[in-house]
């Protein structure tokens, strides 16, 4: 270990007395860490919320619904109000300067801007 790691006092000792099973036994070094954590969706599905009455609050129940307010459109690049959309890239822009900039963006950046808005084209 590097000196600074040791100094920072952040290393756990390998054997902790209060644990029944030590980490080193559970995840021996050299073994592939086959940790498969369940996705949230899987956990929720396993919960079987349909069986129970829908009046009781559960993790899925209390989620908030989509917003009632009409969504305001803001420019993807500057954050100003954006009444226009570029037909080629589907980016929103606020004025002509931004438009010029958009047109000279490489494709990668276009996709990243769209991904910020969750509007990127995802090829599965």
């Amino acid at each position, binding site marked *: 270990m590097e000196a*600074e*790691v040791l100094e*920072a*006092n*952040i*290393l*756990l*000792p390998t054997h*902790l*007395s*209060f*644990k*029944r*099973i030590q*980490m080193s036994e559970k995840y021996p070094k050299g073994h592939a*860490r086959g*940790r498969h*954590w*369940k996705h*949230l969706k899987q*956990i*929720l599905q*396993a*919960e079987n919320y349909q069986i129970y009455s829908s009046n*009781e*609050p*559960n*993790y899925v*129940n*209390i*989620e*908030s*619904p*989509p*917003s*009632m*307010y009409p*969504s*305001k459109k*803001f420019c993807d*690049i*500057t*954050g*100003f*109000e954006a009444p226009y959309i570029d037909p*080629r890239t589907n980016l929103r822009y*606020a004025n002509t*300067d*931004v438009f010029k*900039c958009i*047109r000279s*963006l490489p*494709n990668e*950046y276009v996709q*990243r*801007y769209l991904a*910020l*808005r*969750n*509007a990127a084209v995802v090829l599965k």
Partner: protein
Amino acid sequence: MQRNPPLIPPSEKRRFDPLDRNPGMYFKQERDLSVHAIAPMMGVFVVGNESIADEVEFQVDVIQQTKLEAIDISSNLAFLREHFSSALRRFCFAVYSHDFIFSMLNLRAEQVDHPILITECVCNPVQSRSKLAELLFEGYGVPSVAFGVDAVFSYKYNQQIGVCDKDGLAVWSGLNTSHIIPFVNGEPVFEACCRTNIGGYHVTDYLKQLLSLKYPNHMSNITWEKVEDLKMEHCYVALDYASEVRLFQKGAKEAEEKNRCWQLPWIPPPAEEPPSEEEIARKAAIKEKQGQRLREMAAAKRSSRITELENELQGLEFLLHQLENVQENDVPSFLSETGYISKLEIESAVVRVTQSLKKAKREQVEIEEKMDPSMTEKYTLINIPDNMLSPEQLKEKRKQLFIKTTSEGRQRAKQKRFEEELDRERQNELDEKKRLENPELYLEQLHAKHRELSEKFEQRKRLKVNGTHTNESHNSSGGVGCGERLNAAQKERMRLLTTAAFDRGKGEDTLGTRDEDWQLYKLMSKDIDDDDEGQDEDEAELARVTSRLQDIDPTFVAKSEIGPFQTIVEIPRFRPLTKEDFQIILGVERFRCPEILFQPNMIGIDQAGMDEMAGISIRRLPLKGNSVEERITNSILMTGGSCLFPGMGERLEAGIRKIRPFESPIRVVRASDPVLDAWRGAAAVPFSEQTFSRQDYYEKGEDWLRRYNLRYTF
């Protein structure tokens, strides 16, 4: 006996991390390996009600430093970036956190002997709870466990200290989620609770992406931790996003003031100072000396060469002299010793030597003058018609012809260059005169020229860009389609391709069988080259005009440098890097990023924002009646790490006012300590009667936890 353990308040010196460092779990290594691994929505408290032999009650404080086994640092980082749910999923980090806490407490016993109260998210899935219980009971041997919601603890604590009332609304904004929980009679009403999956993590992520896209050159500097710091320091919530943004769009002075500038570390290139007087003098002296040395060397060489030649001349003359004395018959034998064959040769050698001697003695040699007479001699053969010469002479003649034409060509080129120089100088002089006569007019003309050149340039660039864009999207070599106007070169290429490929007739494709077919590509590429060349000329012209303008006109700024907004900053090639290139400016982003808490649509998450959630929550209340609602809105508490943004209270109030009837009382307060109040609240709750003991775990199993609900009032 139930003793209320004394509260050890967390020390004040700690840096509060608004990213919802729920008390208890706050992993942050100092130094450079800062890993923020959190088990979100989970805090661990060891509230000891039993006394141990050596230590009485104690409580765990917020722990600032943590240990993480060095092996797992990378996976910890991965965990941080991907964790999106607030239900605990990855238990290895729970394990680590527990390990850390317990070892921090210096627990030496075989098992952890204290009951544990753990905070969780609202309506935690049973599986999370049960896994955690399993971990604690089986892994650590904890006697009993209790679960509670952190937001509620926070509210209860604040209720205790009088910040909010018995009925109210807790607005909790955490790392990954935000919850709204109404309280009636001191107990949370979970049926009316509301959750949106936006939290501090999303805000930081948004900021990071925006900055990386705007400043791609500095992407390595824009790290997660740095962006978090930026967010904590500089972000605020605008009272009305639209009007704030309009301020910036107009470019008003207030907007300028709101810009914050982050200067990246930057080392200016070593400045070349104008050499001082001594430097110049010293350098001149050195040059002088060197020149002197060179001259001396040249003189020495020349003198040695002269003496050599003189000696040779003397020897040859002596030889000649001797030759005269020798008789005719003995000449060959006499000469064979010396290496010369005939008298003529000796004489010619003498002539040569005297010539070189003369040359060496003279300082400058006019080669050209010598050349001209020799030229006319050399080219004697040219004028003689071919049929009179022998084959050897013909060869000679051709050589002479060749030499003559090349030297003439060289002379012509030199002449032309000279003339061009003169021309250019004359032009410059004219220019200068014009400028001096009428500076304004000249400037205008120059501006106009610059404008039209740059327009032409931009248009060409646009065409090119359009062409390449369509290239990308269509994957065809010609870039046809969609009404794009091809320029001449592209049209030519298309024509070549189509005619060549389909010219064979009868539908057979025999292009390529003959070697000449491949010349097609040469033609094609040549076309493109021509186009580029033309562009280069224009570019050079543009650059020249630009530099001229920059020299003359102090107010002129090249067009490429202007940007009313800071877009992708291009560093122009013809300018050395300055301090400004290494600055990252946070303007609109300061309030654009926390805005997503109120408008999740900006990120594409289709849920209600925090102000709307409050309305939804009130609507969902099972028992209606105006008075309840009024009481609730009268005490709205903001807690959780992500509510530390300045301006959030006002925004929330304005947002809720929109939904509530006219003139209903609305009071929004911030918790006394948003980050740590949950811990304090939890520490104050007497929960030893309500725990889930190990006995229960073994007998009733995990599923019983489903119906486990902590009662929060005391």
